[in-house]
């Protein structure tokens, strides 16, 4: 340990610029500038709004993932969980519409949050009580949630009741003084996340547990409870993302949220949170989500690479971004 500290933390006196934690934002700026040079359409308000709105889902789920990863955990089930929650929510809404009318949307959202929290609780309890690697547990629940949504949709698609669509649409497509609602919701989630992580006792304990679980335990911290709670928070974030997501396409399918888990984890790590725990960067996660979405957007806007190679270029850019990151912050 100590040898690493020596290398990474030669802090001077006074206020030094925290390059390490600024890196994701610098990377974001560089990618935006690159995007603008490559394609003039990139900076159009419309395109930017689209991209930012789209990154909302990964960002919101990423806030939860920041908690989980900061405690030293990992959640591979978020994509499937999101699909599952979406499915349950749509079933609830459709079922309640006759009785409640548009209020069914609210009821459905409430149910979604509860189901999300329960899914997270399930993950958390298996991991902490059963003391099994989070990787394995959430890989298992990933399969389970995915199977459930496939089952619920009969392998097809599970659309929301037509009568609710109009009332619900604005949650994704509407805006408030020009700011799309999903962006506003993301902001609220991130602010709450940052507050909880940096300003509350729970947040303090999250990083302590991730940094050294033994020290936390010896200091009277309920390590299992903190970890489980992080998974619950993750579940709630997934539910919030689901609530914003449903009006976008109005249906849940077996492919909803597929591979999002990898995007989420990538966003969190690009954002500066350590995968081994002990450090949490909520705002960095948002930058990470934006970076991923912008890379994808620029890839489509430029016509330079063969459609077959898009994935290769994306992969390379992410690695290069991380390398740049490392070498600037190692100064």
């Amino acid at each position, binding site marked *: 340990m100590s040898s690493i500290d020596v290398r990474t933390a030669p802090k001077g006196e006074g206020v030094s610029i925290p390059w390490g934690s600024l890196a994701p934002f610098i990377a974001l700026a560089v990618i935006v500038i690159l995007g603008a040079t490559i394609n003039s359409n990139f900076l159009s308000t419309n395109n930017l709004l*689209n991209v930012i709105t789209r990154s909302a889902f990964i960002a919101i789920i990423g806030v939860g993932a920041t908690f989980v990863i900061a405690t030293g955990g990992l959640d591979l089930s978020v994509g499937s969980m999101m699909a599952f929650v979406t499915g349950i929510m749509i079933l609830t809404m459709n079922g309640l519409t006759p009785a409640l009318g548009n209020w069914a949307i609210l009821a459905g959202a409430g149910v979604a949050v509860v189901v999300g929290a329960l899914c997270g609780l399930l993950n958390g309890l298996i991991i902490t009580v059963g003391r099994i690697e989070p990787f394995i547990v959430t890989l298992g629940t990933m399969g389970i949630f995915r199977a459930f949504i*496939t089952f619920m949709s009969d392998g*097809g*698609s599970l659309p929301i009741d037509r009568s609710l669509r109009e009332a619900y649409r604005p949650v994704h497509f509407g805006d408030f003084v020009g700011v799309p609602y999903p962006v506003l919701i993301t902001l609220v989630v991130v602010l709450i996340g940052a507050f909880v992580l940096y300003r509350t006792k729970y947040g303090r304990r999250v990083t302590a547990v991730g940094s050294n679980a033994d020290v936390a335990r010896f200091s009277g911290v309920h390590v299992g409870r903190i970890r489980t709670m992080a998974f619950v928070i993750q579940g709630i974030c997934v539910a919030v993302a689901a609530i914003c997501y449903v009006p976008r396409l109005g*249906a849940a*399918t077996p492919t*909803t*949220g597929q591979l999002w888990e990898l995007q989420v984890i990538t966003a969190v790590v690009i954002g500066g949170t350590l995968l081994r725990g002990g450090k949490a960067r909520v705002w960095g996660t948002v930058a990470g989500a934006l970076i991923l979405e912008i890379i994808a*957007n620029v890839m*489509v806007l430029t016509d330079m690479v063969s459609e077959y190679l898009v994935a290769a270029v994306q992969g390379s850019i992410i690695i290069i971004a991380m390398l740049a990151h490392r070498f600037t912050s190692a100064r």
Partner: protein
Amino acid sequence: QDKEFTIAVSIPAATHGWTGGVVYHAERAEKEIEAAYPNIDVIVSTAASATAQVSALEDLSATNNLDALVILPFTSEELTGPVEQVASNGTFITVVDRGLSDPSIQDLYVAGDNIAVGSNTADWLVDKLGGEGEIVVLRGIPTVIDDERIKGFTEVIDKSNIKILDIQYANWNQDEAFTLMQDYLAQYPNIDAVWANDDDMLLGVLEAVDQAGRADVKFALGGNGMKQVIEMVKAGDERTPISTPYPPSMIASAIYMTAAQFAGQALMRGSFKLDAPLITPENADQFYFPDSPF
């Protein structure tokens, strides 16, 4: 009729709308046939990849005395050998949708026509656009099915003055299609028409076009004959007036035809190629299955 017959059905797992439909129809056929003919046992087995499908074939033939195999192969090359292996035990082979590399292995072949799905749509589009305009295309995942549709489509388009602005993968995923379409719309100020080679993706495309409020997109077409899209066709939607059938129910037809061999009915062999006629408001009813998930 004391003899027991076993029919194995090997199909892809329900990973998106169309394969979901296949699973649905296969399971329904299983129930109906088992109810109608107590001496026939149908085993449906799904696989998530070509490798898994080969494994499933091995499992099915190693542990059952298979009288018939109905298979919708993931890919031609990869499944040809393994199916041949099964056939060598005297099992009746019905191939659905994707042909094998060596057609002599199969006894019965029931298929849609992926090239026609592409080319029929393209023909219609060339006609409606008067042979010129700018269009964008969304394709599925890199497989032969996707390849053939794109091939059928582009070959026709290339003969006209229509310009294909862009083709990108959206993985037969509604959500990715939505995102991709948003980006297309941002990049190209004028798009006369969109073709998503699957109706699942079309739903995402429509959502994106609506959101952008772009009136220049005159046509947004899909394929496969998904329930929701056929409803639009029936309702005379201006932007999506047609679709092309590629009904997942073909698996059910194949299972029935295979079962017929053992129910003492007429012997059926040979090829049955389902056409891909355009689905129009006039004929839409015959392609509409309200109970199907697809």
